[in-house]
Every structure is written in C-alpha cells, then in structure tokens.
C-alpha cells in the first residue's frame, strides 16, 4: 500500500495553508489518518505514548454494536414474517432485515457525515471519530418502519444541536444519538412514543408493546397481564432474548450484556454507571412493588427483573448512559449518575401516564444533571482536603 501513501503525501501540499484546497484540509486529514496510522511524533515529554487513541476507542464501540445489528436484522425479518403469518428460515429473515436496515444506516451516515464534515471545514477542526459511534447508534434506536426523511431530520438535529453547536465531541452536554431519538419522539409522537409495536408489517397492523400492556390496564398484576398476551410472546425469557417487536438494536438483552461486559473489560465504559443503573432500577422497582397493592397502577407491580429486560433499558444503559463525555466525570459521580438513570427510568415508566418507556428521557435528564453531581463530588473532595490542611 506504499503507492497509496506516497500518492496521499504527494497531494498533501495542495491542502496546506494558503493553497486553494486548504478549506478541504479536515477531509484530507481524515482520509489520511483513517487509511494510514498517524505519523505524528511527540513534541515534548512524555516522549513515548500509549498505543490507544480516540479512533481506536470509537471503532471498538462500533464493533461492539455489530452483533446488535445482526440480531436486529434477523428479528426485523422474523417480526415481519410473524405479522403476515409467513414461514421463513432465519437466513431469509436476515436478508429481509438487511434490506430494511441498509437504507436506514445509509441515510444516518450520509446525514451525520455531511454535518460533521461541514462543521469541521467551517470551524477548521479535525473530523472527529465520535460521529461514527453516534451514527452507528442512531439506527439501532429507530423502529425498522421509520420513514427515511424523518430519520434524516432527526440525525441532523442530533449531530448539530446535540453536538456541533457545543463545539463537537468532548464539549457536548447531551448524548447526540439520544438527542436524535428524542427529536423523533417529540416530533412524531403518534408513531414513536412506545404505545404501539414497531415492525415492518401489513398496513394497519398493530399491537401493544410489553410496556404498554400493564400501562393500559388498571388494577392488575403486570406479569399475569403479560403472560395473557397471545399476539406476542411476552414471557421473561423471550423479552430477554429479544424475539419481540421493537427498535432495531435493543431487543436482545443477552447480546447487549455481552457487549457491555466486553467494553467494561476493555475499560472503555465505566462499570460504575452500569452497576449504579441496575441498582437504581432494582431499588425503584422494588419500592414500586411495595406500593403496588395500594394503587390501581398495574405498572407498579412489574418486578425488578422484568424491568431489566423490558423496553430499551439495557441498550440505553450500556451504550448511551455510559457515554463518557455526557455522563459524570468522577468515579463517585458515575455511581450516582447511573443510579438515578435507573430510578428515573422506573419512575417515568410507572408513574407518567403519557410515556410507557422512560429510559431515553431518564438518560437525557441525567445528562443535564451530570455536571451538578460532579460539582458536589468535587466539593466533597475539596472539603476533605481543606480539613487535612487545617
């Protein structure tokens, strides 16, 4: 591949300061450093550096998402077959799913790359690899039946408002992928708030999601309600293994758990957020269970282990809440931040009558509070130090 590198280096002077093509430098820099590892040398001490860089961090997260895509594709085909009453092999399901998902991925990446490159050129900074993760996450949070124009607008909103106006990756307050999801959620609420199942099926086909089943019935036990549904299999094990309609990438909790474990082992995401999140979810839903007998709200009777596998909690906690920039930056803060993501998810699910699913709003809300949590953690650190100094 030396010829390619030689060619790239040959055309490099065209992008230098003062040259006609200088405005395209971010694009050139991205091409060169994606194709070939960097030739940047250390300028001052330390003279040697670790092999990890942001490109590697981001690409590993994208790789961790691939199993979610594969299962998502199969499930999209499976749900489609189920709704029409077809018999199909899993290969046929996969092919159908891939055909459905590819346009969604393409539209997301086109929209994401367009805005990222535009901002890089206008603001003269390097193209950040973070958009790869954002664009890889967005399709997984979308229903397979999403109209592509909505997706384009949502992605643009997520990248521009969620990230670029703050200055790009590292400066943003809200998770850009969730911002995109949130935009769709509030702009087209009739389609996407989680009352009705999402699948590529016959016109007019409809059904209740696992979360909206107990939400729409009063004075009942959630588990027996779920077991009474015949249209879909809402047993615990099936909710966990993901053969249910939903957004593309969030249904199979086992795959998500494996991805989370891998990323935690690689120390790319914080186990504290995950631990905090699961504890928060368990604690709050347990409290809900205690209140349930005195209330006509069936959502309160959902047991903790059902909350864990219902809706997108597992996916949101693993890939969205752990995002290092928008979460808390201190270790103690991460525990608290994760805990409240779990608590708020259950509160929004159970108590808010409008939205059956709450994990997205819980994470965005905690994104907003992450700095406040850090502020208090830092205050504690400072007052401890002052006590030592005194």
């Amino acid at each position, binding site marked *: 591949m030396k010829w390619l590198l030689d060619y790239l280096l040959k055309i490099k002077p065209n992008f230098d300061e003062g040259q006609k093509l200088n405005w395209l430098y971010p694009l050139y820099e991205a091409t060169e450093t994606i194709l070939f590892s960097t030739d940047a040398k250390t300028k*001052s001490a330390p003279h*040697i550096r670790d092999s990890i860089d942001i490109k590697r961090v981001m690409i590993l997260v994208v790789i961790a998402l691939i199993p979610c895509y594969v299962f998502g594709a199969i499930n999209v085909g499976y749900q489609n077959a189920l709704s029409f009453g077809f018999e199909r092999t899993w290969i046929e399901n996969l092919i159908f799913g891939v055909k459905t998902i590819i346009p969604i991925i393409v539209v997301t990446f086109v929209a994401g790359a367009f805005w990222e490159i535009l901002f890089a050129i206008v603001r003269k900074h390097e193209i950040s690899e973070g958009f790869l993760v954002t664009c890889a996450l967005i399709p997984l949070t979308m229903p397979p039946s999403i109209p592509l124009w909505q997706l384009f607008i949502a992605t643009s909103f997520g990248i521009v408002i969620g990230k670029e106006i703050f200055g790009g990756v*590292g400066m943003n307050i809200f998770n850009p992928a969730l911002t995109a999801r949130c935009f769709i959620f509030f702009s087209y609420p009739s389609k996407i708030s989680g009352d009705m199942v999402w699948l590529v099926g016959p016109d007019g086909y409809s059904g209740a999601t696992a979360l909206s089943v107990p939400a729409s019935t009063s004075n009942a036990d959630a588990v027996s309600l779920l077991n009474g549904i015949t249209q879909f299999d809402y047993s615990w094990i099936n909710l966990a293994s993901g053969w249910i309609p939903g957004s593309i990438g969030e249904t199979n909790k086992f795959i998500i758990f494996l991805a989370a474990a891998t990323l935690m082992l*690689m120390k*790319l995401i914080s186990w504290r957020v995950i631990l905090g999140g699961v504890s928060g979810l368990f604690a709050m839903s347990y409290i809900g269970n205690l209140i349930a007998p005195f209330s006509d709200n069936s959502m309160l009777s959902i047991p903790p282990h059902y909350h864990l596998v219902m809706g997108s909690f597992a996916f949101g906690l693993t890939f969205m809440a752990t995002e290092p920039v928008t979460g808390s930056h201190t270790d103690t803060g991460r525990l608290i931040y994760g805990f409240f993501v779990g608590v708020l998810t259950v509160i929004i699910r159970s108590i808010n009558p409008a939205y059956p699913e709450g994990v997205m709003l819980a994470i965005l809300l905690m994104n907003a509070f992450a700095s406040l949590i850090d502020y208090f953690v830092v205050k504690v650190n400072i007052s401890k130090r002052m006590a030592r100094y005194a």
Partner: protein
Amino acid sequence: MSHIKIKKGHDIKISGIPKSDISTAPTASELALLPSDFRGVKPKLMVKVGDNVKIGTPLFFDKLNPSLRWASPGSGIIKDIKYGPRRVIEKIEIELDKDQQGLDFKSHSMNDISNLSEDEVLDVILGANLFPHFRQRPFNTIPDHKIRPRDIFISGLNTAPLAVDLEIAMADEIENFQAGINAIEKLTDGKVYLTNKVDSKLSDVKNVNINTIEGPHPSGNVGIQIHHISHLKPSELIWTIDPQDVVMIGKLFLKGVYDPSKIISVAGPGVKEPTHLRVKTGYPIKSILKSNLSSDNVRMISGDVLTGRECTLEDYMSFYDSSISVISNEINREFIGMLNPGSSSSRYSLTPVFVSLSNILFPFTSSQNGNHRAVVPINSWERVLPMDILPNELYRSILAEDIEEMESLGLFECDDEDFALCSFACPSKTDVSGVIRKGLDMLQAEV
C-alpha cells in the same frame, strides 16, 4: 516506619533495560552547565571565556538570591558561553585539562558532622556552591536557603522507565550517604524522610525516618511519597534531594572535596548496549552515545522517556538528570491501522484493548500513536495517578485559569512529573503534565 502500597500507576515495559554493572564512560574533553535547567533562576555570570576554573569554582549566581551559586563540575578553561534568544545564557562550556584539580574545603569526621550547627552546615554547602542540588515542594524549584523546610524528603528508589538503579549506584556509597544525611538533617526542624523499596541496601541508614514503598511507577517519585507519608499543606515547604546528591554532600563534608561524579543509566530501544555509567555532571551526550547508537534516526533524551528533554549529540546532560534514554524516530504507518486488531508485539496499551501475548519488552518509538483530540474522560488518567487528586477537574481548572479552584483541588501537592503517566496513557493525546506545569507557574506567580 511504615510500609506504603501503591496500586494505581504503571511500570512501562520498554525495551533496552540497562545491565546491572557500572561501565566506565568514554572520556570527555569538555563539560557544560546549562543555566536553563533551573526554573525561576536569573543567572549572572561570574566567569568569562578563557578563564581558568577548578572543580568547584562558581560559574554563575542567581541575581534574585546572590548566595546561590553553581560550581564548575570540571577544571580547565571556559571554552564558550552560548546565548539564546534575548541573551539568555544557554550553556557554559568548560574545556577540561589533564590534572582536574579541585578547590579544597575543610574535611570533617563523622563525629564533627554531628556536632555542626545548622548555620555551619549551610555555610559549607553554600560555600562549596552545592546548594542547587536541593529542590523544594511546592513548585519543584531551588529553595530559598534562608527559610527552613518543614521536612526533607529523599526517594531511595527510581521507578521511572529505564532509570538508574539506585541499589547499584548507591552500593559503595553508604558511608558517604550517611555523612550527607547527618549534615542535611541539621537543615530542618522536622525529619529527614527516606523512602526505600523493601530490603534496600539503604535500609540501615541512621538519623532518618525510613519508610518502604512498593508498587508501580510513579511510586518512586518523591511527590507521591510526600503525598502518602505527610501531606504538603499550602503554607509549608519541603525540600527534596536526590540520594546521589546526598552522597556528593557527604563527600564534601567527609573529604573536603566536590566530586561531581554520579552513576547514570544509558538505555532504551535505540541504544546498542544499555548500561550504567559513571559520569560527571554536565557530561557531553556525544561521549556517552556516539558509539552506542543502534541507528542514525533516533531521539536522544536527557532524562527518562516520560519527563526528559530532547537533545542532540552536541548537547550536554541536564543538571538533575541521571539517565540518558534513546528511542527510535522511525514510524511505521500501518495501512488501515485503526482496524488492525494488534497484539502486544505491535501495540502497547494500558487500556486493555489489544491482544496481550506476554510480558515482552516493547520497543517504543517517538510516535504519538494518534492525533490530538478533545478529552474523552474514560478514566485513563485516574488509573495511573496514585494521589487523592481529581486530575480531570484539576486540568480543567487550570485551563480556566481559576487559581482558587486549582489551589483547593490540591495543585500545591502536585508536580508535572507525577502526571507524566497521565499524558502517556491519554487516548486524546492531551499534554496533561504540560498543563499541570502551566498551572504551577500560574500559582507560583500568584503567591
């Protein structure tokens, strides 16, 4: 005495470890002092080109503190004085003569030393122009001899990559070291703390408070030891000194001579035969490395690879440095390197994202291994900083130039060398240690 266990940190497994015997250095025809090694000092020359000097003759003094003078490490003729921009004195080069005569000072017996008063000890050290070997915390600058320190700290172990092994360097110097300790003990009302590794040759030294420490780098950094043994408070001063410099002071008292020799390590992947050498302060790089480089395209560093200063063959060793490291300057540009999985034969990372084969030693180059990006806080700094400090918040308070916040986040206790591993491990290639130094300079200007 207590035992300190450090968990956070990392020992970089870099190849080119120096072998454990001391070789004789190739002879040098010149030595030099570099006044730029001393932060916050305004040097004023006491010699001019062509002057004859002996070992110990003062070469320059500090305009801000005229009793602070620097001794010549060799005898001979001042060959050249090089100036940098705005007539900053960069180098004072001494062409060495054959007999290497030194100034004579009064010698003391061990008992005499113990009976000296504080002022007498200070007079001897200042009179022999050796006071610059002391440094103070906070800020890691040369202290004001008129202000007594709370304590004096000596780190008896080096954990920096490829650093000189003090067990080897100090093996034959225990008596001189003891003499030095007996002398400098007078300079503080508090204690002299010596921190060793377990079973060190220095564990029988008297008149010091000995602690042992174990754990990865930076456990050998004196700042980390101060943090764990006895916190530095903002109003306090602590002096620190290198054990080899204590030996130098010991010899001054016992024998009445200034012996500027010390043991250094010459190591790294770019060195043919990594070893320990006995050299003098301000030794020319050329003499040390000329016949020992594995290729032409290398980066030579005076100091260790984490904190040292890049230098050339025409350069000289820095005053406080006790190692010379050489790494390759050749960078292999992998095709689609970002997707190549990589194993420990081609990658080295603290973040366990690459396949690790075994504990092989890695031939580091001067590659940055990535481009600079905005900070993505995945805790890579926190994992290598064994201090009760929030590095991320401290970093941001310095960028925001918020002096009060820096102070309350504990910047007084920090030094840039303690944060070098943070810069090493950072996936965004952020210069954390550089920012910490900037913060310290800001804070120092303020107080």
